[in-house]
């Protein structure tokens, strides 16, 4: 116990640095996947058959394979097969590769949630819009979109909370997120070696952060109650 108290400040510092990476990956994934998911959703409900077929094939591949393999492919494929290591060996290249894999993966999951949201708005409302002389674009942005957003908040919350924890997968390409930082103390880091507790201590970071995310999403849902 005494040893732990002595190690605490050093460990907290290192874990904070790892958690910054986790948070960066989390926010960039959300920022990228929200719009990209919408684009993919439009693709999969497109009336033009080749577009919808290709989009659905893409969704099948991304959702049908493990994110861990996708990370390995995005990071190692350019160097190993194309002989052009575009990412480089450094931390920033690893982060970019991880961010791309995460954005694409989550966009595919989001797109299916969006699709469900769009289809859940009764078709009668679109017909009414057409009768009133609105364009398709106006109908989507002024009639469908906000109702869709209200309905997809609960399923999207699920994905967001999963994403917080999924970021840990990026350690497979040696992105030094918080679990990597915690495990480093087992091998020796910052003058501490053979310490096991920091790894388990990382769980508190996830727990507290997910608490904050949950509160924020509940707030958002309350706000959305405006559209019944």
């Amino acid at each position, binding site marked *: 116990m005494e*040893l732990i108290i002595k190690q605490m400040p*050093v460990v907290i510092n290192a874990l904070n640095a790892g958690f910054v990476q986790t948070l960066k990956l989390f926010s960039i994934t959300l920022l990228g996947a929200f719009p990209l998911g919408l684009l993919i959703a439009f693709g999969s409900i497109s009336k033009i058959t080749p577009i919808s077929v290709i989009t659905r094939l893409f969704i099948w591949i991304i959702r049908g394979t493990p994110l861990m393999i996708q990370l*390995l492919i995005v*990071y*190692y494929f*350019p*160097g*190993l*097969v*194309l*002989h052009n*290591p575009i*990412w*480089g*060996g*450094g*931390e920033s*290249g690893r982060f970019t590769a991880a961010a791309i894999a995460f954005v694409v993966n989550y966009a595919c999951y989001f797109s299916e949630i969006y699709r469900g949201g769009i289809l859940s708005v009764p078709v009668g409302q679109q017909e009414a819009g057409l009768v009133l002389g609105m364009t398709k674009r106006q109908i989507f942005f002024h009639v469908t979109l906000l109702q869709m957003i209200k309905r997809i908040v609960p399923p999207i919350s699920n994905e967001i909370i999963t994403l917080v924890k999924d970021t840990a997968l990026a*350690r*497979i*390409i*040696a992105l*030094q997120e918080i679990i990597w930082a915690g*495990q*480093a*103390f*087992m*091998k*020796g*880091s*910052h*003058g501490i*070696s*053979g*310490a*096991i*507790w920091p790894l388990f201590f990382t769980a508190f970071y996830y727990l507290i952060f997910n608490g904050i995310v949950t509160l924020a999403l509940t707030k958002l849902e309350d706000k959305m109650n405006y559209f019944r």
Partner: protein
Amino acid sequence: MKKFVSKLVLFAMVLALVCSCAYAETDSEYVKAKGTLVVGITVFQPMDYKNEAGEWLGFDADLAKAFAESLGVKAEFQEIEWNNKILELNGRNIDCVWNGMTLTSEVLASMACSKAYCNNAQVVIVPANVAEKFQSVESVKGLNFAVEHGSAGMEVAQANGFKTTNVQDQATALMEVASGTADAAIIDSLMAAAMVGKGTGYENLTYTVALNSEEYGVGFRKDSDLADKLNAFFDAKYNDGSIQKLAETYKIQAALIKQ
């Protein structure tokens, strides 16, 4: 549809063509052109570790810096996932693996390796309170071992016919013993000296039998000319005594191999 298929075939052929082009320049030309030697490492006291200021030091780290300097480039250290070391090397994300790497048959087959520079042994880790019972190879035969997947420890355990559980790294193998999910672990003796016993998180563990003796080397991409350059560097630094001095700094002089 036919058009689509033919386009697909064309695409595959172009891809195959792109893949088959090999690099034209030699490895040392490549490293000199970009000005950095990227060294793939994991944290491994006393070979590679960070001081409180965040700088890499250790026996391997200091030697790597000196070698890079002799090539006229800067050494850059990149932590890697140990299981992916060959992917990292061949994908040119790193230029060498220099991290107390045991020259196993797998390593020798997939990398261009330098001469051995340091001796090591695989030792058995057991809880300290039962250590007395396990002082010989015979006595540990019936135990359940945790070993790092793909490590020299795993090879040694298999050669002895031990029952093993393969885990991600040596640190995890230690945790298995500490938590009682394995009876014993097999790890590098240099690492064991730094990681178990008083003042560590594994105060209740200790090491007993050495199962083999083995050697550390540095790995480069296959066909790389840097392995020969490093051998020459080792010879020079051994002859002027600077390697011996460095080994004393990190207290591994007993394990050093004469060049």
